[in-house]
């Protein structure tokens, strides 16, 4: 059973010629089939956690460990992490001019699966996945994220999630900027992947809205660069009613 273990993770970032510690000792275990919601106020470091796990070069790990089934994730290059089964759905996916979605998806699937998918079944697989996400077939011929609306970018991220079938899916603010219809479609996509029971999901979000569609097994409150409280789904209801004030004012960010 796939397990992601994060132990005492400390991460710094260079900003304005100074080194700033963003993550200050994160401990978290995510097992296959589980869904964990990481919730917290802006600037609490929850996106840093997501990008650090994927290996973004901007972040420096100063101490701690991250393992996937005992393998040291921090030792792996970005692409190795993806091939090992870590997937990050990004909040702001970048444009890649000149590279079509269909070319990108096939290249990516070839890398992650270790062999090129058979053309006939692949075309069908992509077509069906796109239909489920209400994506027009013409989407495949557009350049990656170029001129995509906010909703289209997020659907494209979830399309990749469905096709790449990771062991650990980290969804960074996937709900942000989506209207109700788009949120529903995207959430249904995430739920289809979860229902397979093969993936451990780390849902990073500021709002409780998405949790109406995706029921988490665990909710963690993130503040001041670490997890300050953990509970079940009911913790989200409490955050919905009370907001983050008590965690921010309580000195957790100090």
């Amino acid at each position: 059973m796939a397990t992601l273990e994060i132990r005492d993770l400390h991460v710094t970032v260079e900003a304005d010629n100074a080194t700033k510690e963003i993550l200050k000792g994160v401990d978290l275990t995510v097992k296959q089939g589980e869904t964990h919601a990481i919730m917290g106020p802006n600037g609490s470091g929850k996106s840093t956690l997501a990008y650090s796990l994927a290996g973004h070069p901007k972040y420096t790990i100063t101490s701690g460990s991250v393992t996937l089934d005992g393998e040291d994730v921090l030792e792996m290059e970005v692409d190795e992490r993806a091939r090992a089964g870590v997937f990050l759905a990004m909040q702001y996916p970048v444009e890649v001019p000149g590279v079509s979605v269909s070319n990108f998806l096939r290249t990516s699937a070839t890398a992650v699966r270790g062999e090129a998918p058979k053309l006939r079944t692949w075309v069908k697989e992509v077509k069906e996945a796109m239909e489920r996400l209400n994506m027009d077939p013409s989407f495949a011929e557009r350049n990656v994220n170029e001129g995509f609306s906010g909703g289209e970018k997020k659907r494209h991220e979830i399309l990749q999630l469905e096709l790449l079938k990771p062991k650990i899916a980290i969804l960074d603010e996937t709900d942000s900027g989506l209207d109700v219809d788009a949120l529903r479609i995207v959430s249904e996509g995430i739920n289809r992947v979860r229902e397979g029971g093969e993936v451990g999901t780390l849902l990073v979000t500021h709002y409780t809205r998405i949790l109406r569609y995706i029921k988490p097994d665990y909710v963690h409150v993130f503040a001041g660069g670490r997890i300050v409280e953990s509970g079940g789904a009911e913790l989200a209801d409490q955050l919905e009613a009370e907001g983050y004030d008590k965690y921010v004012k309580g000195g957790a960010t100090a």
Partner: protein
Amino acid sequence: MAEAQNLPVGSTTAGSVAVAAESTVATRMSAPPSFDVADFPVPHGREEEWRFTPLDRLKGLHDGTAKADGALKAEIDAPEGVTVESVGRDDKRIGKAGTPVDRIAAQAFSSFEKATVVSVPKEQVLDQPVRVTLHGEGGTTFGHTVFDIGAFAEAVIVIDHTGDAVRAANVDFIVGDGAKVTVVSVQDWDDTAVHVSQHNALVGRDASFKSVVVTFGGDVVRIHPRVNYAGPGGEAELLGLYFTDAGQHQEHRLLVDHNVPHCKSNVVYKGALQGDDAHAVWIGDVLIEAAAEGTDTYEMNRNLVLTDGARVDSVPNLEIETGEIVGAGHASATGRFDDEQLFYLMARGIPQVEARRLVVRGFFAELVQQIGVKDIEERLIAKIETELEATV
């Protein structure tokens, strides 16, 4: 109208739109156009037209010390109906499309022995390209070639440069009224070659001329495609693609002179650079003269810098002497292969080398598709792949 984005260290992008009574494009040259090399002073390197070029690597082409001591194997594969002649410099087709504008072009004109004239009769539509293969076998050579395309004829011309050579040449394209011509010039030289060439196109009434300049090889390559119009309704499309490796100097200087009304021009040059002291220069001059009402022109240069240590100089220059035009614009942008793009692709399992390949292929793909000559398109894609394999 000039845009410059993501400028990496070691690149410059400058642009200007001038509204002038007198052309600065003409006046900033050291001497007026001439067929006689003696009319041009030996450049010292600070002149506007020479300031980017490494004179010390030109093997004497610029200062008269280069002697015609080399050999260049020339083969012309001409479809039926096309004639190929060897003529002297008194032939009246020579120089009709344009006059040398700098000392090396004039040197080439003063030094060639026999010129080659390739003619396509009027109304002849070729179903096969005219293929000219020039293979350098060392040493210095000078050349002059004229392609004389009759009215309403249609032709594709492919000129291939390979091997080792020090080569200075003028290539003229006389495009008859209503004719359609595509010219592909591939500079696939050995890395030791020096190649300086002026291309002159005279585009007839309602004719269309497409020039595709592809530069991969050479130590120093300096190509100077120029377009003039002989009558209204002409269209010129100038496409260029270059892949500049460590130590190479590849310079493309373009001029489109809109001197008659209702003509179009579209210039798109794209280049990728990699390695220490890779240097690409792009100069795009467009003149819209007072008589050229109804002109529609656009020029664009984009560069993709793949590694540290490479340098791009990109200078679009648009000069407008009449406001009665359809459109005029230019853009120049030099970008570095973006770390965020790389991260995104790698985060989807794609290894770094493959990610780089995907982006560069994408960068050139749109341009390659516009060439319209299938085997050239395929060859370019294969060549780009080879260049990329040498990257890492």
